[in-house]
């Protein structure tokens, strides 16, 4: 895999992989993921994951397999890097994927029968992608389907599906899953973001070899098909995740427009003197942005929180607003933040007055977005 464009870093964070899905509604760029010694990325266009990739040593995971691996960790470390349209286009070329928002005219389908049956659940924004008959040089996009035994034969019985020839989308990587020796069977075109199930995520416990994709390849998640209709081959997956299939849809719901947490926290992180920001609760570290060991940071923050929780009921002054501890190296601040707690690590250049102002600003900025 060739290196993707750098993009503009919005900062390192630590959060569950699912957080990325639900907080990137307007984000266009790449989420660079680091897990242990491995690195990977998720290419995202306005909340729609376009490509998942992870590499550790010689092991390469793509598509659903990579996503499953991300999801197998309660928290992953990642860097949100914003792309310009040009950078995104270049990254998509490097990943050998089509723009899901691009409408491909029907006449682009060159020859041969297309057995893809229109599924009512498929949004029209994601048209089928055509591949010229006999074109074997063009790799298929990464297979993102997890193994589902009941649908294993689908690819074998599917009719040819064509993919629009795109000279620039030549493969850097060979097709990952195609029955060996079977050249008649075109690779299923999969341009949709992966669909997850809890069981599948739980099954992944560590990076597995790329061959894992072989089983994933034919394991398309069930897509709508009239019951008992044997004439109609199984539809090719060209649509984004179907809500019915996946409760935890990869495409985030367009809830409140811009994500308040990323926007506000990134803004604060950019202030002079702020070293790191974490959002945590009693159970886990929800978000981490900045240059600090999140575990150590949150451990200290929890000690502070414990103190605050012990003191608050003893006093009749109401809930605690914030607590700051200053040591020679800097300041550590905790404050309630929605249902969680915010933890800031700052340099000594920031004094308590400044901290109070930041927290006030944060509450003011967060409030309207919360309401929306």
């Amino acid at each position, binding site marked *: 895999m060739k290196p993707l464009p750098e993009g503009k870093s919005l900062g390192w964070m630590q959060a569950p992989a699912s957080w990325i899905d639900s907080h990137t509604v307007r984000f266009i760029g790449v989420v660079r993921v680091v897990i242990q010694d491995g690195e990977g990325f998720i290419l995202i266009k306005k909340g729609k994951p376009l490509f998942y990739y992870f590499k550790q040593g010689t092991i390469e995971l793509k598509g659903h397999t990579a996503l499953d691996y991300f999801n197998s960790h309660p928290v992953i470390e990642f860097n949100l890097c914003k792309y310009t349209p040009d950078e995104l286009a270049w990254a998509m070329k490097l990943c050998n994927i089509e723009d899901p928002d691009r409408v491909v005219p029907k006449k682009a389908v060159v020859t041969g029968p297309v057995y893809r049956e229109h599924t009512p659940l498929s949004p029209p924004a994601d048209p089928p992608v055509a591949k010229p008959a006999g074109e074997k040089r063009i790799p298929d996009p990464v297979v993102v389907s997890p193994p589902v035994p009941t649908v294993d034969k689908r690819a074998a019985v599917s009719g040819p599906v064509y993919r629009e020839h795109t000279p620039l989308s030549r493969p850097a990587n060979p097709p990952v899953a195609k029955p060996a020796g079977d050249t008649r069977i075109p690779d299923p075109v999969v341009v949709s973001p992966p669909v997850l199930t809890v069981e599948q995520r739980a099954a992944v416990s560590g990076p597995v070899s790329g061959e894992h994709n072989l089983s994933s390849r034919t394991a398309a998640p069930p897509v709508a098909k009239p019951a008992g209709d044997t004439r109609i081959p199984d539809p090719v997956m060209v649509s984004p995740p179907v809500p019915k299939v996946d409760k935890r849809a990869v495409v985030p719901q367009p809830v409140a427009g811009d994500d308040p947490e990323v926007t506000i926290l990134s803004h604060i992180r950019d202030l002079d003197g702020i070293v790191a920001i974490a959002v945590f609760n009693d159970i886990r570290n929800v978000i981490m942005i900045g240059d600090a060991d999140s575990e150590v940071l949150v451990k*200290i923050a929890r*000690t502070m929180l*414990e103190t605050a929780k012990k*003191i608050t009921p003893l006093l009749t002054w109401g809930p*605690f607003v914030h*607590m*700051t*501890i200053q*040591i020679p190296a800097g300041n550590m601040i905790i404050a309630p933040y929605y249902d969680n707690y915010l933890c800031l690590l700052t340099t000594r250049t920031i004094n308590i*007055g400044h901290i109070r102002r930041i927290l006030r600003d944060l509450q003011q900025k967060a409030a309207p977005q919360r309401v929306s």
Partner: protein
Amino acid sequence: MLKKILNKFLILHDVRGVIVVRGDGGIVESIKSGMEYNDAFMAAVSTFMAGSKATADTFGNSPAFMVFMEFPDYFLLLAPLKEEFFLLVIAQNTANIGQINQEMKKNREDLVALL
């Protein structure tokens, strides 16, 4: 003599109490204005001291530390004097923190000399 110095803090705008407290939470000296030091409050002071110390210890080498805790109307400001002694200022949120810090700098040596 100690009370006389503590009074310099108490006369600052919206400062309601000043306490010299040991690292273990024990009270050495205290003065107040417009508030009560009841048992619950004293327990809170001890907890605050012990909790702050525990937090500072997690940074390693027991560094000198200052703790500020804010509530809707009041705040607590804990500042080190020497080794196991700290100064705790209780004030309303409208008090001037910079002024309190300035007074601490001016009087630290005198306070330490008396401990």
